[in-house]
Each structure stands twice: as structure tokens, then as C-alpha cells.
């Protein structure tokens, strides 16, 4: 059953060495850390909280994202209801929003359920830090990400639309 070593492996080895030798003249494929531009448009890495079209902080503190997060990394403290200057309607506010990126599994569920498209993902990764606190995204950091980092394509409503497209002529 078990074959034994003969000397013919020397010839077979030559064959293997030709393959590796061929690769000596092939271009190198390894890259450094990939910049976000070369990533796919849907690439998601970190989070941002955004302002809505009226320039208000979009989050209404509804805690849907806090509840759906499988690894419990989001803490939302809802604020009092305030009158929106732009629309003139009452809306919820958020006084504190903390996202602990250390335990985050980038599952996108918080984006998926957000009713007001307040939380989005960004295409650039957070820089590794020196302490555990460096990777805890506080509200300030999340709002800073809106401007500092490239936002990705989707939002809660964009994802909804993708999953539930307008009725077309179905095949």
C-alpha cells in the first residue's frame, strides 16, 4: 500500500522547482495595507453618526440599534423630545452614543434597522490605538467620522430598498 522513497523524486523535484522558479519572474502580489479607495464600494469597516438633510443630528435615540446589536457594543442614552427647527415637528434626541469597536463584529445590523439613517458605516478602518479606550467610539468620534472618513454606499433605507425593491416587471 504505502509506497517507498525511490530516487525518482529527484526528477519530480525538478518539476516542482520549475514551478517555483517560474514564480521568480512573476509580479509580486502582496500589497501593504490597502487604501480605502481600492476597496469595493460596499467595504465596511467603522462607523459614523451623520446629520440629516436639515443639518440636525439625525439620531433620535430610539435604541433600536442598541437592542439589535448581537455583541452589545452600542450604548444609547436618549434625550428629551425637542422641537425640530427645520420641520417644526417634535423629535427624539440622543444625548450619548457609545460604540465599543473592540467587540464589534461589523455585522451591519445597526445600520439595517436604523429608521432615520443616522448610523452609517465608513470605508476606512480605525487606527489601532495604544489603550482600550482608543477603540471606543464616543459620540464625538462618531460625528467626526462623518467628515473625516469616506462613508460607504448604504444606509438603513438603501439596504431596505435593496432587499425590497420597487415592484418591477418580474421575470
Amino acid at each position, binding site marked *: 500500500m504505502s509506497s517507498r522513497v525511490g*530516487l525518482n523524486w*529527484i526528477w519530480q523535484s525538478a518539476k516542482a*522547482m520549475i514551478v*517555483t*522558479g517560474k*514564480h521568480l519572474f512573476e509580479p509580486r502580489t502582496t500589497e501593504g495595507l490597502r487604501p480605502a479607495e481600492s476597496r469595493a464600494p460596499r467595504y465596511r469597516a467603522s462607523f459614523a453618526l451623520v446629520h440629516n438633510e436639515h443639518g440636525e443630528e439625525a439620531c433620535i435615540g430610539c435604541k433600536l440599534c442598541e437592542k439589535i446589536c448581537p455583541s452589545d457594543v452600542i450604548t444609547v442614552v436618549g434625550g428629551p423630545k425637542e422641537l425640530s427647527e427645520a420641520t417644526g415637528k417634535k423629535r427624539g434626541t440622543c444625548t450619548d452614543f457609545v460604540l465599543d469597536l473592540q467587540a464589534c463584529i461589523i455585522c451591519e445590523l445597526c445600520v439595517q434597522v436604523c429608521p432615520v439613517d443616522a448610523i452609517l458605516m465608513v470605508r476606512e478602518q480605525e487606527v489601532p490605538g495604544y489603550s482600550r479606550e482608543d477603540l471606543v467610539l464616543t459620540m464625538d468620534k462618531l460625528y467626526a467620522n462623518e467628515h473625516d472618513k469616506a462613508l460607504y454606499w448604504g444606509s438603513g433605507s438603501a439596504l431596505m430598498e435593496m432587499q425590497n425593491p420597487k415592484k418591477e416587471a418580474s421575470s
Partner: protein
Amino acid sequence: MNPIVHALVIGVPLLTFLMGGAALATWFERRFSGKMQTRWGPTVVGPAGLLQPVADALKMMQKEDIVPRAADRTLFNLAPLFPPFLVIASAAVIPFAATIDADGAVKATGVVADLDIGILWVMALAGLMVFPIWVAGWAANNKYTMLSGMRMVAQGISYEIPMVLCALVPVIFAGSLSLSDIVAYQAVHGWNALSLSPSAIVGAVAALLFFLASLAEANRIPFDIPEAESELIGGVMVEYTGIKFGIFMLAEYLHTIVASALTAVLFFGGPLGPGPAVLGLGWMLGKTLVLFVLIYWIRWSLYRFRSDQLMDLCWRILVPLSLVLVMLSALLVAGGFA
């Protein structure tokens, strides 16, 4: 010339060459394998990563020295002294240059000590090589190093037989144990492994086997069973830290250089080649380099044997084959073909 002065004049450059070569070998191996695997290898330290060996050496020097509690302290600390010593010492008899005598005969020079038992010197030192490594494995009192050490000795002694027997082939041709005599013989009769004479066939096979056996002695893939890191983690070096670990690695890289140089001298004419004798050093280094690259090419292309298959290959095929080669070369000499 005063022998002490002679030893220093040739020995110090040789030592520099070996140490620099070994340092460059680590860089070369990483760049070469990187290229082979379509990646970069070291690029950061120095131009093209050339200062990487220096950085590595400095890093290893700084590391804390840890001796396991259960180890045999004395032997554990003494063992790293010997592998590089033995490898470097065996290079003492290898001629690196050539001159032409007044009577037109080519003479190999550039040798620290042209002993008349040259080959025996190399073989004896190579045979001793297994002990420091075994002692390192034993002294660490670790099961992995112990197994590795036992494998090392078993493999080392087994492959010494075909190595010695194949080294006998040029000895039989040249009728001398001195490496410079072997070079001189090749100057007259053509390279042992590469010429038009019928003896070259025997010589070529002997060169192949000798090269394989030296791969095994140097613990290179496909024969790097003692250091098989996928099962034995780090071979005998598991418990060594810092520079002691580095010394074992250094000995390995030195071994590849010395093995290539020795193969070049025994079978490929050493410092011989077309052109004036002054080029001898260049020829020798060039041949060594080619064989050296071959060792690394083999290493990054092949998988490794299992210990039993290694022994099987040695005792079932290499030993009888090399005995046959010895007999064949004796026949050639007696028949006047060489």
C-alpha cells in the same frame, strides 16, 4: 611563511567571508523565497532590506537569556559554542584560489591549512557536528528537543556514510586525501563531475549523492527532520533564547556555504576554470554561489520527508549506491580510464 602568519592572512578573510556570507544568506533566503512566493521579503531596514541581518543580530543579542529550570545548566550553555566552531573549522582545508607553478601545473592555494588528510578533516568535523546539537537537545530536558536531538544524531550519522563514501570517489581518482591534490587532478583530467572522460558519469552521480547527503547534514529541506517545526516546533532550539538561538541558526547557514564550497572543490574543479589562474577565486566563489542558490531553491520548492523515510532512503538506496560508485571508480582507476 610563518604558519601563524599564514593562518591569519588567509584565515581572517575566510572567516570574514563565511560570516558575511552567512549574514547575507539570511537576507538572500528571505528575498529569494519572497520573490519565489510572489511577495517582498525584508525591505525596510537598509537598501532592499540589506541591513536586516544586522538588525536581527542586534535583536538577538538584546534578548533575555532564559535557561529552563529543569535543564542541565552547564551543557545547555556550552552547547551553542560548538556548531559554528566545527563548521568554520572544516572550511580550513578548502582551497579558494589557484596559481600556476613554474612548471605549468595548476596549484590550489588560498587554503588555510593544506593538510594531507584534508577530506578526513572535513568528514571528522562533520561527524562531530551532531554532538553539540544532541547535547543541546538533551540538556534542555524537553521532550521536543530530546526527540529532535535523537533524530538529529540518527540522521547525521546515517547520512555521513554516503557522504564519506561519495567523497571517496574523487579521492580514488586523485589518489590523495588532500583537497589541493584533488583540484590539481581535476586540472589535468577535467572536473570530476563535468567533463568528457568516462569517469565523469560516476563523478556526476557521486556529486549528486554527496550534495544530497550534505543537504541532510546541513538539515535542509527535504531532510530537515530534526528541525521539523510543524511537528517538533523548533527542533533542539525550542528552549534557546536570543543569541544562543541565533548561533544555531548561524551554524546552519554557515553549513550551507561550506557544503556548497566543498561540493564545488570535490566535484566541480573548485578554483579551476577558463581564464587565467587569478580568476580562480572568482570561479570558486561563483561555483559556490550556484550550488548555494540551488540549496535554497530546493528548500523552498520541496516538502520534507518523514524520519523513517529519510533513514529508508539513506540505508536502502544511498549507502549501497555510493558503495557501488566507489567500486566503479576503483574499476575505472584500475582500468586506466581515470
